[in-house]
């Protein structure tokens, strides 16, 4: 008889544990408000990307098309993946002296791991992380970017 009692209580506990689980899923079934899915491409307009999100490296240019990059290659040295390549040239200053300046800031987005070390290393805050994240392209070469705008030059006063 004790065996039977044990048997029945076993069945009872098993069934009640199963019903408990069904109650949980069932309660979500009748509460569609709990749905957390974001309709991604449709909600592009009102999507909030935190300002610190690291999407890609960009160089800030002001309204005069001037940037703050002196071509010091601190970022290039800080980068663990050889993502950045700085090509420098020699400008002549008004006084007639030759001075090293940035020619092209080459950025391999396909190698970048968004570790932020280049931005931390930059002494003049010339580069920063942008919040873009839709980087997929059909041709890998499109991920090779030049960060300084054509015709841009060093902002006066930045050393």
């Amino acid at each position, binding site marked *: 008889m004790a065996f039977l009692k044990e048997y029945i209580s076993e069945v009872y506990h098993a069934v009640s544990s199963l019903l408990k689980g*069904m109650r949980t899923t069932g309660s*979500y079934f009748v509460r569609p408000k709990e*749905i957390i*899915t974001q309709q991604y491409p449709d909600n592009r307009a009102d999507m909030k990307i935190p300002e610190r999100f690291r999407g890609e490296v960009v160089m800030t240019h002001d309204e005069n098309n001037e940037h703050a990059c002196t071509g010091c290659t601190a970022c290039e040295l800080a980068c663990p993946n050889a993502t950045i390549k700085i090509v420098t040239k020699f400008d002549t200053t008004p006084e007639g002296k030759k001075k090293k300046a940035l020619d092209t800031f080459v950025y391999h987005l396909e190698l970048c791991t968004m570790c932020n070390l280049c931005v931390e290393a930059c002494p003049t805050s010339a580069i920063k992380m942008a919040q873009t994240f839709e980087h997929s392209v059909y041709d890998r070469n499109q991920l090779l970017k030049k960060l300084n705008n054509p015709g841009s030059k060093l902002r006066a006063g930045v050393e």
Partner: protein
Amino acid sequence: MALILECVIVMLLVISLFAVLGLVLVLMERKVAARMQIRLGPNRVGPKGMFQTAADTLKLMMKEGLTPDGADKFLFNLAPFVVMIAAMLIMAPIAFAKGFQIWDINIGVLYVSAVSSVSVIGILMAGWASNNKYSLLGAMRSGAQIVSYELSAGLSIISIVVLSGSLQVSDIIASQQTGWWLFRGHIPAIIAFVIFIIAVTAETNRAPFDLAEAESELTAGFHTEYSGMKFALFFLAEYINIFIVCAIGATLFLGGWMPLHMGHWEGFNHLMDYIPSSLWFLGKTFFLIFLIMWFRWTFPRLRVDQLLSLEWKYLLPISMFNLLLITLIAIMGWHF
């Protein structure tokens, strides 16, 4: 001539019912799953994703039907059709509405339980012919599982046969004129119903008894090697089988197309009669289908030895004892 015409019409009806049911049930499953999993489910093709399954079918049709090099080609290609035909055959004695039945055979219930076990042959065939170890394991599991669970499903069916005194589907439905067996047969009928639902969930290889497919263990079990339309046939057969077993359950326990009648509430009973009988039938069937889907999206899977011990240690003894009780109720006329 008239007979041939009749046959053709019935065939067309069954096939189109298959197609429609497949589309509806797969969509329903995905929507139910999504709601339980706090997500939206398919919502891109058509309004609220209504045509998602149609698009899926189109995709499956256009895919290449791959046959592995080492497979037994004949059996490999035959298996999905065996499963499909077995599912089609069971459709025959089901009464979809008042007087709307393909074949009111006098051993209807026996026929159903006999034919429904044919599909395991298709699964074994598929698993063996694929020449894949995962498929073979899945098929062997499926064989053991269906053979075991047929017992308690059969015993539950028999308990209704005992109560109604007939094997004929139309008679069983007629015997529930005054009330459904689920309510009239006291607690033993409810136990039989619960066991029936568990057993048919196992028989249709649905989670938590989906050991034949067991995604995380056997990748896809017996249909690992199938692709394209041959895979779609397995998939379709699974859903058709769910529909059929739920239809049987609704017929036996919930009165088939019989409206819900409550004792002597004449007004209520008249109101219920206004709802068409086909709606009653489909409503009950879909309720049971929902229940089975609810199981799937809640429970973890059993292990293969636990699956068998559940049947042999719990369901079978309980249903045998239950059958005795029901027989007693039927003999003494204790049911309502």
